[in-house]
């Protein structure tokens, strides 16, 4: 019951924060003049009339009301005004077509990154203060410190250009599950997951070494378990408690951090869409995508806190 209350409170707070942020964004955006870039052979007055019909020139509070009404009754987040390729198209549709590449790359990065990261961390913890541990620790420091933009360039230059193992850019098209597409995504996936591999490895090592020195491990050995059995059955399970939420939140957080990777490997994902919406100043796109990124950030934070309580019975958060 404590847990339930705690979760409710956190979610309530999150929704409140989200609403305030979006409200501020909405007002700040609507205070700006409306930029209309009229293409060739398009009547400017026509475009203006179109926007006027959609309520762009109403008072801000009226606009806010109708914006919310449209979202909740029709699922309509507005139309693209300046967005190349999406002019007069529903914003939500454009967003949904751009979502799969971003999500897929994150899923692949997690699938590849988690086993490697955990493996390295476990190895380092078991061989503590031996050469394996030192090598892994050095590697981890390197991978954590060097920014992803640098190893994205490095991967692109060495593996895509010099060795030609992968194409330089992501394949176009929407056939996301073909082998060719997967291969062309791999450089981006690697650049994305190197940092999280290092993060997982460092965290796992720290947690596991702590658990390995605790007293119940001694008990497990005394009652006759081999070192392997004790490690797998007792130490690993216990050390996974804080690691699992970290994986979840890392997955969510990476979703917002891949803007640079998407730019380097020209992946037609949400990040690219967001960047373009900023460059061409398209307010409806900007609002929707800002909402998306804000939500992603908030979720990443809340997931850790809540799942701690669910996974580990020792932690009773919210209990007075």
């Amino acid at each position, binding site marked *: 019951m404590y847990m339930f209350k705690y979760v409710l409170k956190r979610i309530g707070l999150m929704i409140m924060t989200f609403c305030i942020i979006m409200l501020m964004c909405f007002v700040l955006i609507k205070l700006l003049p409306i930029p209309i870039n009229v293409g060739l052979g398009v009547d400017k007055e026509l475009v203006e009339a179109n926007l006027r019909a959609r309520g762009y020139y109403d008072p801000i509070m009226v606009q806010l009301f109708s914006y919310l009404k449209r979202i909740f009754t029709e699922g309509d987040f507005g139309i693209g005004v300046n967005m190349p390729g999406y002019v007069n198209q529903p914003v939500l549709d454009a967003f949904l077509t751009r979502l799969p590449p971003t999500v897929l790359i994150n899923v692949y990065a997690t699938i590849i990154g988690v086993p490697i990261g955990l493996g390295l961390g476990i190895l380092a913890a078991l061989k503590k203060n031996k050469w394996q541990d030192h090598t892994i620790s050095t590697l981890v420091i390197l991978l954590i410190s060097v920014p992803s933009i640098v190893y994205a360039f490095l991967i692109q230059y060495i593996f895509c250009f010099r060795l030609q193992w992968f194409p330089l850019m992501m394949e176009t098209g929407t056939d996301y599950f073909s082998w060719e597409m997967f291969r062309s995504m791999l450089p981006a996936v690697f650049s994305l997951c190197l940092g999280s591999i290092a993060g997982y490895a460092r965290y796992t090592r720290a947690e596991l070494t702590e658990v390995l020195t605790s007293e119940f491990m001694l008990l497990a050995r005394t009652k006759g378990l081999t070192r392997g059995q004790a490690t797998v059955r007792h130490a690993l399970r216990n050390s996974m408690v804080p690691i699992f939420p970290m994986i979840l939140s890392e997955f969510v957080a990476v979703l917002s951090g891949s803007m640079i990777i998407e730019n380097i490997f020209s992946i037609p994902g949400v990040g690219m869409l967001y960047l373009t919406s*900023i460059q061409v100043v398209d307010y409806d796109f900007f609002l929707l995508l800002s909402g998306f990124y804000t939500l992603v950030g908030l979720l990443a934070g809340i997931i850790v806190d809540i799942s701690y309580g669910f996974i580990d019975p020792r932690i009773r958060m919210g209990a007075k």
Partner: protein
Amino acid sequence: MENKAYANIPKEKFNFVKGRDRSHDAKLETKARSYMRDAFSRFCKNKASVVGAVIIIALVLFAIIAPFCTPYTAAYNDTYFRFTLPKNELFAQTNFWDGCSAESMNKQSFDYYYYMGEETGHNAVKNQQYQKRGSLYSFRLDSYHKTGCIYYNAEEWEYELIQQYQDETNIQVIYPTVSLSDRPSSASTRNDANYYYKTQSRAGGTEIVYDANGDIIPVYASHPVGEEGKDGYHSIRVEGDGEGGVEYEYARRTDTGYEIRINYYEYYIFYHSYYLKDGITQPSFLFGTTSLGQDVLTCLASGARFSFLFAIAVAVVNLLFGAIYGAIEGYYGGKVDLVMERVSDILAAVPSVIVITLLQLHLQNAGSVVVLFIAFFLTGWIGMASTTRMQFYRYKNQEYVLAARTLGARDRRIMFKHIFPNALGTLVTSCALIIPSMIYSEVNLSYLGIINLSSGNLTSVGTLLAGGQPYLTTFPHIIAFPSVFLALLMLSFNLFGNGLRDAFNPSLRGTED
């Protein structure tokens, strides 16, 4: 018990306590170590952090000193020296860092570069050395000389000035020109001044015509000896001029002046050392040049200098504001804390991209530096505030604080004299960790083009990266140096910050000894 009722104890029965060596307030023999000194000595024991600190100092020195050591500025650019490769004069005769690239070409393309050097002595083919393998020629192509000659429209005064320079230094800048009818006929090579010999057009380009010996046939514009040329040229002449009864012409009269054929390398030296006198003696770029012809070294150094200055300024402002905010939150607690926490929660949840975009749209008249500063301030102080707040929660109920209050100290005094110094170590550490993250996000934002910091003498490492990215496969040096800089910076700051954190952590005290 027998009662020995001494009337008085004789004096000699007494002796001084001091003499029995039971003094408890002996003066401390060892020297007291202050918190900071202790942290410093522990920091020095951590080798990795010291290395990190040394690298940071080196990078800072690079950012400060490098712009003074090169004659170039970030605003300098020369379109003819685009994509020149890194060159160090000390390595000029080796095959490394010499500004040359290994090339392999067929005879026509090779001869194009080879005969540049034959005419002017500025060898596009390094030392005119090559190896022939089958139909291909392998050689090192000098990126500083491969521009060769260009046609240049000079006004009368400049034409005279170049001739004056030639007379003074005895260096040939102007070479004999080629009359319009003898120039290549295909549009793409029509204005290529390196075809000073006979050519014929061919599908897809221009072909060199050779004589019976396989040599080129020069087609300089000329007039018979003794006749007055129309070029108004009176300076030194190239070798072989005047032979065979003809004199070469060095210019072609146009409506506005003269169209002359100049060797660009020599013209560059003339232009900078003789005309502008801006300290540039010859083109030589340690880190090469960008796609716009800017010097990578200068751009990197000035970008780094901006990054450092900016990050430190933001960190200081954030530290001040965050510390005060966090102190108030932590000290008063309760409702004040709740409200203030909500405010910082909300601000922390806004992605910085949104803040910057909105600020940029609203403050279009303010410079991007101001926008970036405000944005980083708005989102950056929260970390500092929460660190301070935590420390305040930890210390505010300790006995010594109570004692201070009992003695009548005001809130402000307790906060900043008694509690705040405890938080200093953590704050210093978070400062050391926030500076690289600030630099990194500044680089990211300018790389993504969300904010444009390059104007005039100002540039950013991110802009440099973005500009070099399309040429990653052809000219990796443009991106390599900024990337190495960034990687080194992040690595050293991380090592430094980790060391600092351990040094300031009292719970780790004495564990290493």
